[in-house]
């Protein structure tokens, strides 16, 4: 098989890439000379009995050629040439093989010439990279639940399981079974942010995997998260470079988020200064983008822009219109989570024997604050 893309020639058959009705097709020249007799007219059924286009991978798999399903598509005759229009687009970098079966009159000994052609690969330089790894903190709790990987451009799915790993930072030893198997992978609609879930069975108290294998991370043992450049962007190119991030591991966090402990810096009425909120612990990066908002004195949502601060330890909100005087509400959606999956309304793995854990609340949590002139 030739490794040179482009036109390929057998004794009489020439294969070349071409375009038919806006789609990449395969042009087969010389087909009428490749068989002892004419095909007797452009009958597609007859042609597909005489020619089969296979993937070279299937042809070379050792299976009987006649048992390999031919590539879905159709043959068309136009002038002296035969065309194959595939049902699914030809794949960049793949090789294809045309098997020309002999005419039924040619006798049992007649050969079946096979011609190969290679579809050029996309060899553009890689450009995608890991823009940020969340949590954007130095120390994570030992019962950390999620990472988010933010990429510079849209990515392909299906390679995370092989490309992402976690190792102890002190010995370099890999930590096994840290993640839920990434099938299916969890992406945002733009395919630029991927969610990695640490194995909740090992995080949750009272489950056999937690008792057998313990937390996926080890308190006091720093680790590194590695992202291999073999991840593919949406065009199938690898990353420009791999990425890694080191974390220290602190104690577990097993209590509800407590907005009463947040420190609010309240702006003056009439100003466009931001409301600033300091959390009592780092919170989940993704949920922070949509789980906090402000209601004004009239009880309606204040129009404006919310933004999480460094290390997901704070949030600020800049209103579109100057602040009104009066009592406002910072509303905390019950879905907001900290780094360990605790929310304002429930502990991640609620111990029903602990009075402090209490049953889950069903409403959002509200913190009042007063905008008044100094």
């Amino acid at each position, binding site marked *: 098989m030739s490794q040179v893309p482009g036109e390929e020639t057998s004794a009489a058959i020439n294969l070349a890439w071409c375009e038919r009705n806006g789609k990449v097709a395969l042009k087969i020249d010389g087909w009428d000379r490749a068989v002892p007799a004419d095909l007797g007219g452009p009958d597609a059924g007859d042609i597909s009995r005489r020619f089969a286009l*296979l993937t070279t*991978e*299937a042809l070379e798999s050792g*299976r009987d050629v006649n048992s390999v399903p*031919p*590539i*879905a598509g159709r043959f068309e005759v136009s002038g002296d040439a035969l065309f194959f229009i*595939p049902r*699914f*687009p030809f*794949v*960049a970098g*793949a090789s294809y093989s045309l098997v020309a079966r002999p005419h039924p009159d040619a006798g049992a000994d007649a050969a079946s010439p096979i011609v190969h052609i290679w579809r050029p690969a996309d060899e553009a330089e890689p450009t995608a990279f890991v823009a940020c790894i969340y949590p954007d903190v130095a120390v994570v709790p030992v019962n950390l639940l*999620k990472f988010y990987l933010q990429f510079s451009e849209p*990515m*392909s*799915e*299906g390679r995370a399981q092989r490309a992402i790993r976690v190792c102890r930072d002190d010995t370099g030893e890999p930590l096994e079974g840290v993640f839920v*198997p990434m099938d*299916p992978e*969890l*992406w*945002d*609609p733009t395919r630029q942010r991927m*969610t990695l*879930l640490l194995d*909740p*069975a*090992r995080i*949750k*108290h*009272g*489950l*056999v*995997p937690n*008792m*057998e*294998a313990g937390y996926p991370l080890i308190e006091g043992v720093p680790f590194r998260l590695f992202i291999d450049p073999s991840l*593919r*962007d949406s*065009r*199938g190119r690898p990353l420009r470079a791999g990425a890694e991030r080191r974390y220290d591991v602190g104690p577990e966090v097993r209590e509800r988020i407590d907005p009463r402990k947040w420190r609010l810096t309240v702006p003056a009425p009439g100003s466009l200064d931001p409301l600033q909120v300091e959390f009592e612990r780092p919170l989940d990066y993704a*949920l922070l*983008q*949509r789980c*906090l*908002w402000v209601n004004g004195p009239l009880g309606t949502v204040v*129009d*404006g*822009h919310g933004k999480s601060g460094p290390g997901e330890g704070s949030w600020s909100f800049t209103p*579109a219109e100057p602040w009104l005087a009066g009592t406002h509400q910072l509303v905390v959606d019950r*879905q907001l*989570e900290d780094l360990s999956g605790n929310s304002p309304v429930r502990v*991640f*793995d*609620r111990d*029903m*024997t602990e009075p402090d854990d209490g*049953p889950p609340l*069903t409403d959002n949590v509200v913190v009042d604050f007063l905008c008044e002139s100094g």
Partner: protein
Amino acid sequence: MVDQATTLEHLGLAVGSPGIRSVGPLAFGPEGVLFVGDNVGAAIYAIDVGDSETSGQARAIDLDNLDSSLAAYLGCTREDVEIRDLAVHPGSNNAYLSVMRGSGDAAVPVIVRIDASGAISDVALDEIGFSKSEIEDAADEDDPREVTRVKLRTVTVTDMSYVDGLLVVAGTSNEEFSSTLRRIRFPFTGDTNANSLEIFHVSHGRYETAAPIRAFVPYQGNNSILASYTCTPVVQFTVSDFAPGELAHGKTVAELGAHNRPLDLVSYEQGDEEYLLVANDRHPLIKIACVDIDQQGPLTVPDDSLDSSPADPVTPGVGVPRQLLPHEGVRRMANLDGDNVLMLQQDPEGNIHLHTYDVGDL
């Protein structure tokens, strides 16, 4: 195809090009409608697969090296073929697979049909009868907080079943960690969330948690659901307990051990008894008698060995009695015709095969 679609107009299907961007979980509904989860397009489609054949008799489907044959048919390498799910057409007993060919911009969603002779064809996904239900958090619609929100949340559907007029959908959010079971009325009305419920389960009578349901199967005439979780417990729900908007509680009836993940469940009858099979990524195929689930109390007390000899590994056999079956590498299953179960199996070399097993031998 157009005639077929017309015959399903009463189910809300109309002929057109649905624009399916990806194919994932599959489930058949009434009159051979195929539900297809499109996690990239954030939608579930009901499509007319144009398969009106009636089988009438048991037909085994056996196809070795299915992945190689699919790659050959789809004109790509084996690495470019990802089989996502398996379902059996209730009339023809043909097998249907959701397959992604390639990835990224080059990804092509394909619904493959395999008949009893092992012949491969595919369902055209343009100009077909279809209807669509968006997978969205309905609370986001017209939300006044829009200014502060970035729409990056997705729900990745992991399993679906059609149960008495409702498409029940399990999914995993890419943001919050919760256990929401969506119930979408079919024919689709656009009202997807009224019937969502959040399910908690209790482990060992002490820890109450929520987690995304990975796979589930209705059984006992659709009165019960057995669900497996990303965190390994197997939990039973009674369908009549589901009340819209409520927090529901399930009964944890078994745990399947560390480093193991349940992949799929199927129900079948053997004699007069109903059984469930649970396929796992590490552990063997597990058989559970439905009658044992009913008799199993909630898991309340951890294995005593935990306290007395913590060095001893806990037997993963906590909970409902189970039998281990020898079928290796089972990834997906479907009840073929009541008498047979179809299994998608991966061998140690990674090759994927499709095999039929008589329920009498399971």
